[in-house]
């Protein structure tokens, strides 16, 4: 009995600690002049959202941010899926060494790497533009993508692929029809994780983008200390809403893929 109450207590604590603050952010964004020492707002007002959606700079950087995020996710799949597959079902020589090397971007400050790459990327002409920012966002995302996808492959027995090969499917078909459907949960979590990490980058974008590539975080920092708390709160809610938008995008492509599978 005591255990049950602890659980209920802890679960409501969890809600207040982790979900309530974000809801609070949302409430803050639809009020006006809710300042210290008012505990509750006087009026609800959509003024902050009008400010946000009338700012052409925010509009444009919203597009840039989502574009960069989606391309980073796609590149992550292209690079990490084969690598995770090889690490899980294959047997490369020096596997432990490779896995340690893959951990490097996690175990080393990415800022050091980005600072070292700055001059090279300027010389190659990939600094100060979107391409460079996309490439540098691979740095903090790839180790996590490989990790999540490898854990996914580890749960699938290699026998599945062997079986499909014995009945004569090609390698590509075995991948798309047998492996990929089983990998969907991992692919989904890797995608959302990578998108959120890309969305959270400020300093890498600032250095390699050179102020020329304005993603949302680059606009957010100057906003941070602004007096209009409702606008900053609304801007913050935007960041929480983008992963949800991405999830919808992702779910619809998974739906299309499943439709395609059924038609085979």
């Amino acid at each position, binding site marked *: 009995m005591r255990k049950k109450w602890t659980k209920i207590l802890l679960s409501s604590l969890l809600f207040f600690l982790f979900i309530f603050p*974000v809801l609070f952010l949302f409430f803050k964004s639809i009020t006006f002049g809710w300042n210290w020492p008012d505990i509750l707002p006087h009026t609800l007002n959509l003024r902050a959202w009008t400010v946000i959606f009338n700012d052409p700079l925010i509009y444009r950087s919203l597009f840039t941010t989502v574009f960069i995020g989606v391309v980073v996710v796609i590149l992550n799949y292209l690079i990490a899926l084969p690598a995770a597959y090889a690490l899980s079902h294959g*047997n490369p020589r020096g596997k432990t060494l490779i896995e340690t090397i893959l951990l490097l971007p996690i175990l080393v400050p*990415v800022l050091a790497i980005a600072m*070292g790459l700055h001059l090279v990327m300027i010389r190659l002409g990939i600094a100060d533009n979107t391409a460079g920012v996309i490439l540098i966002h691979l740095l903090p995302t790839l180790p996590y993508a490989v990790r999540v996808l490898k854990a996914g492959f580890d749960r699938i027995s*290699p026998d599945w692929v062997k079986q499909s090969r014995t009945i004569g499917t090609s390698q590509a078909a075995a991948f798309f029809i047998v492996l990929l459907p089983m990998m969907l949960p991992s692919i989904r979590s890797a995608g959302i994780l990578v998108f959120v990490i890309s969305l959270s980058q400020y*300093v890498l974008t600032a250095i390699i983008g050179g102020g020329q590539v304005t993603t949302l975080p680059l606009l957010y920092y100057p906003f941070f200390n602004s007096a209009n708390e409702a606008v900053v709160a609304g801007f*913050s809610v935007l960041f929480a809403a983008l*992963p949800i938008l991405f999830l919808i995008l992702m779910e619809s492509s998974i739906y299309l893929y499943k439709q395609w599978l059924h038609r085979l």
Partner: protein
Amino acid sequence: MFSSARSFLLLAPLLLFMILFVGQGLYRAFSESLHAGDNFLENYEQLFTQGTFWSSLQISVYVAFVSTLLSLIIGLWITRTLFRLFRTDQWKLAAWFPMLIPHFVAAYIIVLFFSPSGWFSAVLESLPLAGTFPVLVNDPLYLGVIITYIWKEVPFVVLMLLPVYQEIDWRMEEVGRSLGAKGFTLFRTVEWPWAGPVTAEVFLILFVFILGAFEVPALLGVTYPAMVPVLAFEWFYQGGWSNRPLAQAMMIVLTFFSVLLSFCLLYAVQRSRRKWMKGGKSNA
């Protein structure tokens, strides 16, 4: 299982990226941190004689250590208490929600609640108790930064520990109990052999990440002492790039420190794991 050659073909794009970006980036950062003249370590000597650097390093290690330790303790406690509940998805969602929020937005949430003109301060003001709300944001003790990191990283700790706790053979607990173990002994002998290595790994990931992260301390920190990444970013652009070698040298020192720590910790985990597999005196 397929051949080593085919594995390398599949790994090639990733390894190429690692060499071109991580390898080259570290190499260039190191070579740019060296002095062109006779004494090639001059930048490092200059760095080590600066009080600014030492106070930055001190505050960085302190913030990273305290945030990581508290996140781990709270995360471990939540996982232990709730792991049976977490079988269903809606509970997982509740605990993992902060993972969807970028660090700088989390920093703003902390400002809304904990700043002197924040919500908690307003609540305290309305209560009949006397007393002013303490300064927790942009404070020299970096409490706002630490609170932000705890809020963000506890879900990560839970995410990493949950699979471990769901796989522990809980019959071992009954064995331990019937042998007369209780409390901490039970925890150490039943849970820790599984949870320990993952805890060490999470400690490493979080500690190194917080040590090298710019986003939160740039918003909630103070100018002096600034955390190392904030100071490095400032030096990187200062005086027409003339302080760049110094910034690079500082980040190289931080990198060296991180790698050294990783090696020690991973080695210790390996050793204790081997000891545990063999049995013997260590856990008797």
